[in-house]
């Protein structure tokens, strides 16, 4: 029997935002194991109150840099629902394209810069060796994929971070013909690189099985914006009722609290989406990723990486179809049909289901709002999995460094976003105190 004594608090790297691992093991027994989010809260829930509603989406985009365009679109949807605005068909297509650009660059950031170094025993993606053909290819693929997603975001949404074109009621600008042609060229060029990315993660041998419930917005065809919320246990929830089904819960071994659904923890994100709706992906994606898709539904948390790689391909294929078949023309913004109301927006952000609720008063100012972010929903699963992984590793008598490395690999597979989560976690603590 090993009687390991280990205690450390370490900063987690290669994740979005600031977090620590806080582990204490005495005589082979885990005393505590915490995934601590050390981001300082910036109080958007309070700041939004009293603001003119038109300024809300761009304010809430600042909750998070990497997911900013997801917060932007979710807040726009909530405001549009509150004020009875139906976006035009072209606006809806441009919202889809905004999400495709976001997912391509954000998933590629996670897969290449955060997850891949672990798989090659490297500390940094930039230390991959250009003189080794495989690593040379990977370096070039990574930056080409990210750049294509970035370019798509820029021509559609104006910027890849804190976009300026999407407005409540439509888009301020449309892409020029030559920009569309350039985006098509870039997306066609990276398609083989995306297929190589899928193979890279399909070949990865990492495994951590966890039985959990998966939840995602599901529609036919596959969409990051539309549909109803579906669980793998067969429940269907309308967007507007989503929040009513989630309960706050206190995690016994942590200061933090999270959400549960029907008393159980659950997972959102790419793995959940592919587990629930792989059959509604773009037909070309299904054809090209046929073998990798046989892995889903999967309970291996590391398949979240593979799911992200497949989603990049879907975003490329879907974007190409839209860009080839759409003639973009400048439109006027749709105007409100009511002056006040409560609206809910639910979208699939890169890391999972994102919920924004807003209440707008007759004076045009925000009365109050609520936001539920993906990392908040995955929080309980992450901490439970960390505890189980430590127990599995302890018989091998690991060093603190090995334990940290293995835990970080697992946490990275969830692709948590601490900028978003800080918004969520400490809010719960505030409620617990009051």
């Amino acid at each position, binding site marked *: 029997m090993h009687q390991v004594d280990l205690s450390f608090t370490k900063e987690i790297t290669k994740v979005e935002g600031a977090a620590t691992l806080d582990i204490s093991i005495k005589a082979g027994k885990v005393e505590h194991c915490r995934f601590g989010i050390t981001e300082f*809260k910036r*109080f958007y829930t309070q*700041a939004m109150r009293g603001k003119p509603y038109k300024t809300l989406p761009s304010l809430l985009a600042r909750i998070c840099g990497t997911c900013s365009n997801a917060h932007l679109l979710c807040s726009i949807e909530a405001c549009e629902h509150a004020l009875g605005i139906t976006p035009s068909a072209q606006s809806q297509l441009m919202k889809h394209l905004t999400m495709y650009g976001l997912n391509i660059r954000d998933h590629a950031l996670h897969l290449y810069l955060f997850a891949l170094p672990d798989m090659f025993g490297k*500390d940094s993606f930039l230390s991959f060796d250009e003189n080794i053909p495989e690593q040379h290819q990977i370096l070039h693929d990574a930056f080409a994929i990210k750049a294509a997603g*970035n370019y798509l975001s820029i021509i559609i949404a104006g910027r890849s*971070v804190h976009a300026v074109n999407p407005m409540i009621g439509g888009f301020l600008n449309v892409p020029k013909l030559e920009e569309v042609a350039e985006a098509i060229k870039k997306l066609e060029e990276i398609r083989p690189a995306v297929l190589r990315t899928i193979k890279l993660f399909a070949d990865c041998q990492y495994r951590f099985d966890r039985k959990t419930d998966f939840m995602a917005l599901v529609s036919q065809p596959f969409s990051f914006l539309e549909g109803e919320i579906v669980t793998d246990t067969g429940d269907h929830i309308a967007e507007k009722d989503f929040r009513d089904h989630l309960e706050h819960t206190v995690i016994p071994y942590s200061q933090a609290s999270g959400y549960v659904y029907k008393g159980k923890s659950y997972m959102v994100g790419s793995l959940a989406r592919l587990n629930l709706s792989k059959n509604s992906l773009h037909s070309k994606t299904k054809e090209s990723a046929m073998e990798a898709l046989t892995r889903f539904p999967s309970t291996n948390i590391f398949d979240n990486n593979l799911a992200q790689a497949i989603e990049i391909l879907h975003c490329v294929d879907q974007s190409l179809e839209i860009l080839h078949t759409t003639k973009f023309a400048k439109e006027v913004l749709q105007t409100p049909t009511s002056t006040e109301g409560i609206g809910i927006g639910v979208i699939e952000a890169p890391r999972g289901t994102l919920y924004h609720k807003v209440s707008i008063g007759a004076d045009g100012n925000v009365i109050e709002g609520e936001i539920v972010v993906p990392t908040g929903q995955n929080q309980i699963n992450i901490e439970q999995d960390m505890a189980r992984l430590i127990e599995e590793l302890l018989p091998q008598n690991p060093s603190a460094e090995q334990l940290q490395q293995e835990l970080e690999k697992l946490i990275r597979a969830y692709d948590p976003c601490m900028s978003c989560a800080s918004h969520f976690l400490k809010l719960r603590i505030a409620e617990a105190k009051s």
Partner: protein
Amino acid sequence: MSILSKSETVTSPAKKLRIGWFTFSCCEDSTIIFTELLNDHWQEWKKLLDIRHARVLQSHNVLDELDVAFVEGALASEEHIRYLKEIRSRSTKLVAVGACAVMGLPSAQRNQFDIKKLAEIQPLLDKFAYLPQVKKLSDVVKVDYIVPGCPMDDRKFLEVLNTALKEFKIVD
């Protein structure tokens, strides 16, 4: 089980610009812009930059002697102030990157909260030892260059980086 290979330690050839990238209270949008700038500049920067500290890119981070520290985010705690002063003391030049570092906002939005909103957040401010007022970098340390924008203006960032590369005689 793979652990960090020792060969991955950051090396320090004399001809590279030793930089660090640090983040305080913000949404990390400028970090994302930096990773997007890598798309076009990674080959060049691999040769020119010795990235000694960047949590988003690597696990092995050292804060010893830096030519240039790029710092994003505003200061929300005493620990932030202490750490920023440490970064300042170890860096020849310090660059404030993005709106929160340069102007404090939007991270400092609570500085303008009314009494009702402040009362709501006060228990949190106390519990986690937040500063009474969020500060911009220049409130606490000398800032040599600024890259404003929310997110940072990428052209201005490249301008500042190129200035530093010349100043430290990495390029002519």
